[in-house]
């Protein structure tokens, strides 16, 4: 049961699991260049028809603009909120700290469809629904915990004496924040901007409920998919994947490379 034989079997098994995980991404990419209306194998001819179609569609360009605005603003808001909370958790102990942390960390444990309904009802009540910033508000709540987690992880690597040393050298708390804490957290802040932007860029349930007529890219995909099989989705999908994969990879590379540096 031990030795090479087992290793080979396990290796094949791990490869199968990865195949399952990456098959949809792979086929989406392949089919986006495939001429068939209903894609299957053997493949049809190579074609950029679907790309031409989406690139000439003004609705899709509008959706891309909306998505860029939403995900960028969300990333900045969520990272700011996450930074404040992570620093508070790092620096202070106070009564009700448990509930305080629960307040920021709970939202991702609630199914998105429930958050979508709750946000829709609440924002309509406040007269804030049906706008692009309705999505931004909702997304910042959903993504702030990720920002908080990443930045908290970074602060965990910081020697608390570093801040105290800055005070002892005559710096105010604000100066210590500006010259010690923020620079130290910079890789985490950039990672967090990338990751929260990626999450916001792909989120469709809440966005679909609260956005009214302002469509983001995932909402456009949702609407196309509801209609019928349309390989345009694969072409849009390729762009979406490229965007989010670059954001995620950038986030990881920035965060991990710094970690390795600070360990050596």
């Amino acid at each position, binding site marked *: 049961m031990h030795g090479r034989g087992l*290793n080979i079997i*396990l*290796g094949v*098994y*791990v490869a199968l*699991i990865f195949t*399952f*995980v*990456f*098959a*949809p*991404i792979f*086929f*989406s990419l392949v*089919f986006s260049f495939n001429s068939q209306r209903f894609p299957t*194998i*053997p493949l049809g001819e190579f074609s950029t028809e679907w790309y031409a179609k989406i690139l000439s569609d003004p609705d899709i360009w509008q959706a891309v603009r909306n998505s860029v605005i939403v995900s960028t603003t969300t990333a900045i808001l969520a990272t700011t*909120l996450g930074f*404040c*909370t992570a620093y*508070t958790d790092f620096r*202070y102990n106070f009564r009700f700290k448990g509930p*305080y942390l629960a*307040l*920021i960390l*709970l*939202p991702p*444990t*609630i*199914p998105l*469809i*429930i*958050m979508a*309904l*709750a*946000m*829709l*009802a*609440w924002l309509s009540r406040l007269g804030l629904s049906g706008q692009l910033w309705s999505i931004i*508000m909702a997304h*910042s*709540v959903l993504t*702030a915990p990720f920002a908080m987690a990443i930045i908290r992880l970074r602060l965990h690597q910081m020697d608390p004496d570093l801040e105290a040393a800055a005070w002892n050298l005559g710096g105010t708390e604000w100066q210590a924040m500006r010259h010690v804490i923020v620079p130290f957290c910079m890789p985490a802040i950039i990672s967090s901007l990338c990751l929260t932007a*990626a999450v916001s860029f*792909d989120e*469709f*349930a809440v966005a679909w409920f609260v956005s009214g007529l302002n469509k983001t890219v*995932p909402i456009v*995909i*949702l609407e196309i*998919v509801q209609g019928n*099989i349309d390989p345009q*989705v*694969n072409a*849009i*999908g390729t762009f979406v*994947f490229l965007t989010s*994969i670059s954001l*995620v990879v950038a986030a*990881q590379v920035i965060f991990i490379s710094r970690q390795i540096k600070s360990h050596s």
Partner: protein
Amino acid sequence: MSTKHKIDLYALTWRLPIILWQLIFFVGPVVFMIAISFFVVKNYRMTEAFEFVNWQRMLTRGYFWDSYWYTLFIASLSAAIAMMLAFPAAWALAFRASENLRRWAVFLLIIPFFTSYLVRTFSWYVILAESGVLNAMLGYVGLGPFKMLNTHFGTVVGYLTLTLPLAVILQTVTMANIDKTLVEAARNLGCKPLSTIWRVVLPLSKTGFVVTALFCFILAFGDFVAPFYLGGSQEPTLPILILDTTKSGQQWPRAAVVAIMMMLTLFAVAFTAIMLAYRKPKGAR
């Protein structure tokens, strides 16, 4: 640092933003959703009230409970399948792979988590279709075609797209953190490999595994995309029920009832799971 009685402006600057933000945009919505479950809809308009009519309507209907038990069943089933499928891979990555390889594997598995679930689901739709990729492949070896879309199988494949990468990551991290000397000790004392997994590895990873299963369950329980597009929504799950009730009927109060029932169920499941995870094994001091 300032004294006890003076207001510490610096501390408040960092502490207050999230409190205010989450009160307005997180606690507010959730509390309001509970409130509207008691509102009434008259002439397609929601009016404030405190009546139990929505609760009564939903909880006495057969279709609600059918949907409830189906959702609970299919989400638990797919969480169990994700856990079992992930285990051999996670075990291999934790015990057989080099640290470098393991880091790469986790790195790769994080990627799908942040990429469009919708596009991946659509891709599965094309792969699993009657004349799709999988059936075409099976056709070459003389099998099929099988009906995979609009079945429970389709739903579970969709759920696994969501949960399997997470299950592998969390299981791998859990097992990689086990003290390896304990595993070696068991082996040296003559414990068979499978028996080592059962009596040493699994008990040591209990907390991590229960939390992993819980996450898989939560993700599947709340997802409407897989049962809708791949399962054909012939048996609507609770999220689909919320979607239909909100989008088509303007019946927000009834949708809120379904949402609250879902949340209560999740709390109950999470509470049970966490109790299980932290319960000390028999005989432990």
